Every structure is written in C-alpha cells, then in structure tokens.
C-alpha cells in the first residue's frame, strides 16, 4: 500500500513540485529570516561590544524617558562630573563622552547622507585617553581645531573622501559648512570594523557646541586601575556619587546590544509576515490539489478497496504522500531560506561589518522547517484523505471522474452560521456593546471571510462563473461559453482555487482602503486647518530639528511674509491619574546598574508641540478656544478638547508633567482648543518648552509661513527657496507638498503591502495553474473530442485561459467585496471611538489595478497548462479511457 502511494507520487514529479512550491516559499521566508537574525544578532553584538570595549564603568544622569524610536532619551551630565569620577578610588582615568545624533553629513550630490531609514550619523568628541577612546585611528591624527574632524573608514570610502579632504556638514548653528578630515578611524583593535552608523568625531568643544550642550557630556566613561573589577569600580563610584546612575562597562554594552537587537527583531517579524502569508495560502492550494487528485483517483482507490485495502490503509497512504510532499518542500524551503539569508547578509555587509556572510545553520531552524513543512501539508491533506477512504469498492466499476457532489447541507448550515455569527459580532462591535468592539469587528470579519471564501464560495461559484463568462461568449463565441461552463462545473474546485486569491486580495483591499482613508483624513485635516501658505520643514525623518536656528528671523525679513510660526517637537510624560493608570514602563533595574535609579515616575508618554502662542492660532485653525493665547505663558500649556475631556482637565488645572531635562514640573492648562492637527494634543508655548527640553529637541522642526494679502506668493516661495537652497536638511513646501510629506510614510507602508499582495498572488496563481493542469488532465478525452470536431489549438488555449481568468476574477472580486465591506465596518468602528479621525475613502484606481493585476496574472498562470493541453495528441486523447 505504501509502495503504491509513493510510486504514484514520484510518477508525477511536476505535480509534486507545484503542490509543494507554496510551502517552499513559506518556509524559505520563515527560515531565511531566522537564519538571518541569528547571524545578524551575533555580528551586531560583537560590534557593539567593540564600540564600548574600553569602558569599565559609565556614569550618567538618572533622568531618562523611553521613546517610540527604541533609544531612550536622557539628560546630559555637567563637565565637572568628569573630575569627580576621576577622583574616585580605583578609577584609572575618566573622560566625558559626547554621543548624540544631530548634525548630518551632506553628500557629494548635495543631499543628506543616509536620510530616512538605516543607521544614523552620530556626533562624538575626541577622547585623548587611548583606553577609553571609541575605535582606533587608522590614519592621520586627532582634531585639534574646531574645523577638524575624524570620520570612520566606511563613511570615507562611501563618499570617496581621503585624509585632508573637506566634508560638508549640515548644522543648526552655521548651516552647511565644510570640515577638514584629519583622521580616519574604525572599530576593533586594528580599526577594521564598522557598525554602520556614521560617527563624526569633533573636538570636545565643537561637538558640544553643535549639540547645544556647552560644558555638558552625554555620559562619563571610566576605566579601572589594574586589578580592579568592573563591579567593584561601579560600586565604589555609585557610593561616592549617589545622585548619578552608574553602570559597569558590560552592563552598558548589554543595554546597547539590547536596543539594537530590537531593530533586528522588527526586521525578522516583518519578513516573517511574508512567510506566514505564503503558508496560509499554501494550505488552500495543497488542500485543493489533494482533493482533486483523490477525486481523480477514485477508481484506483475503489479497486484497492475492492481487493482488500482497509479504510485506514487508504488514509495512511494519502497522508504518507502528504508527508513526502511536506518533507521535500521543507528541504527545498530550507535551502531557499539559506540562500535568502546569504543574499541578505551579503547585501547588509555593504553597510556594516558582518562576521560571516554565510549564515550558520542552527538545528532549531531545520526542525522548524520540517515541522512546518510536514505539518502544513498533512493538515491540508487530512480532509481529502478521509474523503478518499469513504470511496466504496463499487466505484471501481462505475464512471466517476469529477467531484460533482452537491453542496452539502452541513456546508450550507456552517456557512450561514458563520456569516450570521460574523455579522452579529460586527454589529455588536459597531454598537459598542461588548468588552472590545475592535476585536469583535475583527473576529466577525474573519468569520465571514472564512465562510465566504471557503464554505459558501462553492455556492456562488457556479452563477458567478457564468456571469463572468458572459462577456466572453458574446456573439456566440463557443470558447468563452465552454470556459464558463468548465469553471462552473465543479464549483467546489473553482472556489477552492480562487480562495487563495480571495484571501490575499481581501487583506490588500482592506489595508489599501484603510491607508487611503488615513491619507484622505490627514489631507482633510491639514487642508482645512492649516492656513499657512508655506511650511519650512526638516527634510528627513531622522533629523529632529535641523532647521538652522536663525531661520525664522531670516524668513520674517522676506517681503510679503505676514506671519512666521516655528514649532518644535518633544516627548513628555503625563503624571495625572489617567496617565499614571496607563503607565506601561517597566521599573526593573538591570544587572550591573547602580547608584540612582532612573527617576522618571510612572506615567503616560506623549508627544507635545512647542509653539509660538502669538502666531500659532493664526497659522493653524484650532477651532474654538477656551482661554486666550495670551495666557500661554511660562509653565502653561494648551490642550485639545477631547483629550482634556477624557482626563477631566479644565482651564486652570495644574498637571504634573515629567520632562527629561528638568524632571517633574507643574504645568497649568491655560487654553483648551477644539481641533487638533496631527499629534498635537498638547501644545507648549516656547516659554514652557525651551527651559524644559533637551538641547536635541530645542531646535525648530517646522516653520509655518503665511503671506500678506495680495502678496506675490511666487516671489515669497522663490525667496524661501533661495534662503534654504544650500541646506539639504530643510525643504520649503507649499500646502500640497506639506500634505504629501506628512502622508509619505503611508506610501512606504503601502509599498510593503503591495509586495505582500505580489507574493500572495504569485502563490495563489501557482494554485490556479495546478488546478487547471489537473483539470486538463481530467478532461483529456473531452479536449480530444473538441479537437477532433474542429477546435483549433488557439481556440483550445483561449478556452483554458478564459477559464483561468474567470477563476482569477472570481477570487479577486470576492476578495474585493469582502475587503471593502470589512474596511467599511472597520472605519465605522474606528470612527465610533474617534469621531472625525477617519474619512472613509475608496482608492478606486488602486483597487482597479489590483483587479487587473490579479486577472492578468491568472491568465499568465494558465499559459503552461493551456499550452500543454493544446499540444496533446488528438488521437490518443479521444481513444484514452
């Protein structure tokens, strides 16, 4: 029995490949990311270890706050602390270290180097003590004047710079200006390593000046005298300087490694999503393939049963076949994953040093591949296997080829029950009558998706197939008619072949609509509230406030400019009862950290805007105001009405707020406004913002500019452009450009989603091709007859291509409809929670493109089966039995 199953399997190698290919893809993505992240984590950990390898202890401020960017923000330490640390027993040497983002490198093309994603440009100060210096000099010497810098070899190489060359750096103090490269450095003992960040080392005074932190360091690093352990040294410093936070060098390195590996984790999760999508779609394809094979094999199975095979043997034989498919797919998937990881590592090694460009094959990954490969395949084959065992021996002598069984009653009941249940869940979710409306809507949507795609699909496959075929059969075209009937003849098969596509398209439609709605909402909000004619904004997401400090004043001098309103961004922590209740910050102290614990009390982290109260409400329509902008003096803030209402804040209330720079401060609510722009639920007048913010955030991030009535806006724009022509960190935007820049990240997100669609479509198409191949095989005699009575090869090909198009359109339309319904439900649910936040918008063009792409791809998928069918020998086909 087992031999029979295996023989059959290997006799059809092509089917083995097409059945397993979806699993291969899924496993490739999953194992590839695992292998990549293991290798990457190892490399990054060893690199980060290299950066701080000379540190035995680090002394820093306990004033810190977590941020959504991964790296916490922390206040600086005074220069005087260096001597205090140096005086502690056991300290061999202590130095102040400047380490911060801020200035950006301007490339040879006049643009910011590495603007956007990826490792940042960091400012360091030159450290004389060789033991504590970060990295080693490969060439040249230290910077001795303010105009001199040391950069790392990889930055130098990528920009084609050599010792003695000049490098342009964008600063907020002096705009873009040249610095002279006097040294080239690298990490590790021989300076041959690089973490991928672009370190620029200035003299200490220049580094501090560029970061607006004169006489301040980001932390103090110390090295021990011989015979002193890191733990003893840290403990001693902690005792002597209890108001500061002290870490052993190892703990400091571990903390940094931890923060960087979070990024690796995100990368891993991101790529894994592709793997999971592939596997989910794979389940449908394997299920459908096995169902068809088993139906076609009915006679064979019946014969086996007739000569004495038990039902159990039949099931085992089928499952065995699935196991073999799974094993083969797992093996190929693992190989492909290995290749993927190797490729990605090679690409990444262009950015930073990687210990090995070949991933290490961990045993766990192999087990994962086999378990998932076999698991998914066997799971998908269980139902077909059980069905095959139910074939009665008498079927051996009756003519059964196609699964024409009616849609069973239980299927109707289950399908209806799931739809009703799903609708009920969505309904109650929308009516806000449950513990978690969003989850209810989501769960209901899932139930409907499963029901429609899997259970009810076959019910509508027949009429819908015929309807789609109708335009193809106009004018009595027989191939269109035949294609429609072929798609309709086995609705279960058509629905199952289309289900994979349905799921992919549903996901993408849903996300595309939500994204488009978010964009439309942002568009609405900005265009209705922003009254500025131009916005001067930092060009990249990573440069916090990169607008030169004197810009606002310079803009005021431009003729025709009416109002100039700069804004800044910062993070703060709300310590009101609502904020404290929603605190999520962990308060565990990591091993190796001594002295003062982090002093931020638990509370809710939120963004705040720093504004100029005299002009802000003129450039941005904030709706009705309670209180006057004139009341926004030092120690006050303005709050958006909904935000204030939820927390029970009223004008005049004083709220405790934690600032990283200054600790807990009372801030009084002076104004409550009705409409907010973007994330601006809390506005701090600059009088409150400036003294309470870190230097990093105390630079203008955007400047809103209005023109005088009747002014020549083109001339103003030209003047603004001229003003910032040489500063690549700053862009001058009109309102439309500003809207685009604000919604830009959504486009990046959409790009990823479309890549996902591409993957799901490719896999779904393999499924359609598989189904059609099997159908063609099954219809050999019929196709032979058609050819015999005069169907040309081209007509036959057209028939099969149209059938594929029908299946693809069926799957896509189902996905489109479900996706639109879900997006509608979701936006209602979101709007119920946050009125006005989401404007439901159908991205018609994108949706049409999705349909077109899926349909064309469906036809492409059928090219091979169609070609093969058209080449078959007519005589053999008509005389085959």
């Amino acid at each position, binding site marked *: 029995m087992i031999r029979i199953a295996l023989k059959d399997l290997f006799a059809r190698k092509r089917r083995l490949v097409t059945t397993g290919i979806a699993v291969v893809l899924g496993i490739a993505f999953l194992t590839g990311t695992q292998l990549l992240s293991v290798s990457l984590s190892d490399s990054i950990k060893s690199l980060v270890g290299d950066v701080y390898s000379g540190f035995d202890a680090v002394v820093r401020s306990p004033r810190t706050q977590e941020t959504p960017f991964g790296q916490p923000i922390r206040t600086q330490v005074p220069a005087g602390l260096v001597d205090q640390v140096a005086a502690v027993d056991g300290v061999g040497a202590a130095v102040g270290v400047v380490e911060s983002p801020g200035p950006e490198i301007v490339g040879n093309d006049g643009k910011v180097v590495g603007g956007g994603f990826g490792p940042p440009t960091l400012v360091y100060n030159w450290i004389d003590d060789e033991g504590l210096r970060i990295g080693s000099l490969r060439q040249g010497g230290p910077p001795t004047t303010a105009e001199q810098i040391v950069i790392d070899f990889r930055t130098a190489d990528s920009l084609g710079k050599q010792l003695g060359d000049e490098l342009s750096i964008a600063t907020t103090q002096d705009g873009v200006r040249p610095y002279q490269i006097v040294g080239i450095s690298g990490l590790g003992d021989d300076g041959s390593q690089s973490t991928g960040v672009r370190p620029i080392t200035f003299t200490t005074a220049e580094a501090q000046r560029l970061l607006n932190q004169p006489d301040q360091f980001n932390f103090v690093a110390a090295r021990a005298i011989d015979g002193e352990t890191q733990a003893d040294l840290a403990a001693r410093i902690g005792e002597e300087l209890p108001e500061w936070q002290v870490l052993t060098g190892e703990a400091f390195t571990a903390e940094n490694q931890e923060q960087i590996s979070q990024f690796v984790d995100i990368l891993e999760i991101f790529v894994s999503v592709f793997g999971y999508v592939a596997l989910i779609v794979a389940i449908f394809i394997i299920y459908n393939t096995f169902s068809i094979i088993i139906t076609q094999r009915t006679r064979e199975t019946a014969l086996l049963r007739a000569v004495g095979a038990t039902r159990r043997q039949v099931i085992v034989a089928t499952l065995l076949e699935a196991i073999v498919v799974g094993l083969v797919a797992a093996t190929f998937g693992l190989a492909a994953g290995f290749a993927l990881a190797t490729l990605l590592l090679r690409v990444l090694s262009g950015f930073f040093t990687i210990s090995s460009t070949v991933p290490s094959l961990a045993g766990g990954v192999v087990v994962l591949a086999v378990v998932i490969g076999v698991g998914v395949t066997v799971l998908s084959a269980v139902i077909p296997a059980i069905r095959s065992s139910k074939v009665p021996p008498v079927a051996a002598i009756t003519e059964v080829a196609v699964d024409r069984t009616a849609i069973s009653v239980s299927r109707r009941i289950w399908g209806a029950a799931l739809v009703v249940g799903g609708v009920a869940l969505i309904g109650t979710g929308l009516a806000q009558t449950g513990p978690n409306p969003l989850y209810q809507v989501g769960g209901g949507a899932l139930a409907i998706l499963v029901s429609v795609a899997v259970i009810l699909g076959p019910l509508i496959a027949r009429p819908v197939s015929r309807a789609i075929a109708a335009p193809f059969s106009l004018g009595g075209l027989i191939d269109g008619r035949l294609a429609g009937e072929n798609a309709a003849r086995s609705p279960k098969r058509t629905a199952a072949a289309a289900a994979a596509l349905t799921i992919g398209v549903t996901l993408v439609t849903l996300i595309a609509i939500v994204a488009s709605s978010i964009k439309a909402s942002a568009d609405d909000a900005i265009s209705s509230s922003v009254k500025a004619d131009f916005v001067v904004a930092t060009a990249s997401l990573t440069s916090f406030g990169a607008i030169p400090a004197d810009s606002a004043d310079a803009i005021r001098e431009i003729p025709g400019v009416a109002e100039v309103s700069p804004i800044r961004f910062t993070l703060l922590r709300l310590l009101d009862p609502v904020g404290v209740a929603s605190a999520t910050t962990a308060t565990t102290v990591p091993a190796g950290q001594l002295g003062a614990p982090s002093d931020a009390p638990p509370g809710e982290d939120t963004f705040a805007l720093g504004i100029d109260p005299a002009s802000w409400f003129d450039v941005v329509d904030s709706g009705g105001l309670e209180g006057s902008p004139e009341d926004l003096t030092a120690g006050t803030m303005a709050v958006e009405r909904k935000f204030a209402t939820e927390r029970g804040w009223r004008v005049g209330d004083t709220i405790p707020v934690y600032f990283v720079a200054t600790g807990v401060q009372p801030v009084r609510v002076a104004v409550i406004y009705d409409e907010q722009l973007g994330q601006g639920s809390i506005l701090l007048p600059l009088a409150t913002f400036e003294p309470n913010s870190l230097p990093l955030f105390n630079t203008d991030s955007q400047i809103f500019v209005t023109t005088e009535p009747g002014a020549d806006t083109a001339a103003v724009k030209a003047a603004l452009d001229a003003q910032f022509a040489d500063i690549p960190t700053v862009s001058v935007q009109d309102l439309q450009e500003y809207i685009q820049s604000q919604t830009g990240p959504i486009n990046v997100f959409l790009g990823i989603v479309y890549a996902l669609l591409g993957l799901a479509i490719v896999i779904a198409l393999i499924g359609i091709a598989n189904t059609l191949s099997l159908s063609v095989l099954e219809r050999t005699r*019929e196709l032979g*007859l058609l*050819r015999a009575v005069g169907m040309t090869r081209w007509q036959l090909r057209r028939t099969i291509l149209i059938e594929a198009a029908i299946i693809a359109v069926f799957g896509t339309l189902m996905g489109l409809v479900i996706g639109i319904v879900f997006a509608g439900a979701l936006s209602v649910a979101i709007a119920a929670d946050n009125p006005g936040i989401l404007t439901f918008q159908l991205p018609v063009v994108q949706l049409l493109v999705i349909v077109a792409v899926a349909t064309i791809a469906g036809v492409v998928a059928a090219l091979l089966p169609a070609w093969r069918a058209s080449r078959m020998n007519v005589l053999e086909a008509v005389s085959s039995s």
Partner: protein
Amino acid sequence: MSMTTTPSGTAAAGAVDAVKVYGTDDTEVRALDGVTIDFERSRFTAIMGPSGSGKSTLMHCLAGLDRLSAGRVRIGDVFLDDLSDAKLTELRRDKVGFVFQAFNLIPTLSAAENITLPMDLAGRKPDAAWMDQIINIVGLADRLSHRPSELSGGQQQRVAVARALVSRPEIVFADEPTGNLDSRSGHEVLGFMRYAVSDLNQTVVVVTHDPNAAAYADRVVFLADGRIVDQMENPTAERIIDSMKQLGG
C-alpha cells in the same frame, strides 16, 4: 456549402497506397500496408475486420486524426498529408463529421449546443432549416436543452449523429457508433445514418465489427493485416458473416 450539388458518384474521400507503421525495427507493426480505396459520394460504406486489422487506423488517417507513414489520403479534392495542424483542424471542422463509440459529447454543453459545436467553433450560423430537419429525423426536438448526463446512451449517440451531419460535411466517419448501445438503440442510430445517405445525399463511413451494423451499408470493405482483402456491394448480415468466416478460415 455546395457539396450536395456535386454529382454523386465521384469520391468524397480516398486513400492511395496508405501505409502506417508503428514502432521501429523489432517492434515494427504495419497497421496499414498499402491500402488504396475511394469512398463515393452519397454512399454508406462499412469497414470491417478483426481486431488489429487496421480498420480504425485507416479511419483515423482518412479523417485527419492521424498521419500516414507513406501514401496519400484526401477529403474531397484536398490531400491531407501536407496540411499543417491548423489546416487539418479546419478541415475536420468543416468537411468531416465524427461519431465515436463513446464519449461523443461535451458534458457541459446542452444537446443543441453539442450539435452546433463545429459550426460555433467555425463561427458560423447553422442552416436553420437543415438543422430542424436533422433534429426531427433523429427525434431529439424535445431533448435539445438537456445535458448529455440527462440523456440515455442511445439519445447521446443520436445527438452525436446530428452533430456530425449539421455542417453538411464532405463525409461522416463513425467508429463503432453502436458498440456501447443495446440493439434497439443501435438500429435506430444506424437507421438515421442510412436515411442521411439515402434521403439527404450524405456520405457515411462506419467502422464496425458487427455484421448487423455493416448490413446497413451500400458496400462493405474487409481489412485484415492492414490490407483490403475483400469488398461486397449491397451486403446482408448473412453474406457478411459468411465472408468473415472465409476470411477468418
């Protein structure tokens, strides 16, 4: 379609020195070994012979379903041997009618659609009067909207005969058309073919091993080992059986 105006008596199809060889060297089988034959218009010919005699091969080659190893075949005045697959397909569609032993119909199409299939494939409208006439003769007027699975075996073969005739082909080939039918249905089907020849001036060639079926023909051609071994005009079942006995002995 001017075929019916062609004077009867000239050949609708024919083969000259037809040779068909399967396999090579040791396994070589000469299925046709120099067959020369003409099928005259408006006549009903039966090809008979034991299994392996080459009768099906001859029919397949004549109908453009298979190609000769040597020799020539023609339908009307078109020689098939040099035709491309596309031309051959067109020829089958327009000039040849087929009735197979079983599986003659496309299961997804109704009886009426099956009948007009060759015309639809050619993108032509069937001659309505001719079609009505044929449908009435085969007695399917009330079955036209049925699918093949809803028809009896005899009804299915009658639909196949109607399809073979509807485009007024040069010639109709039938390969064991009654092989799967009970005798009453078989006689009905053969009766329609006889009628088509006698009253509608069609040309029919039937391959069969059943003497009773062959007795419907105007002429019987006997094949054995790939050669024509005997011919008989105006046969009866008894004479055919006698002749077969002689050939077999």
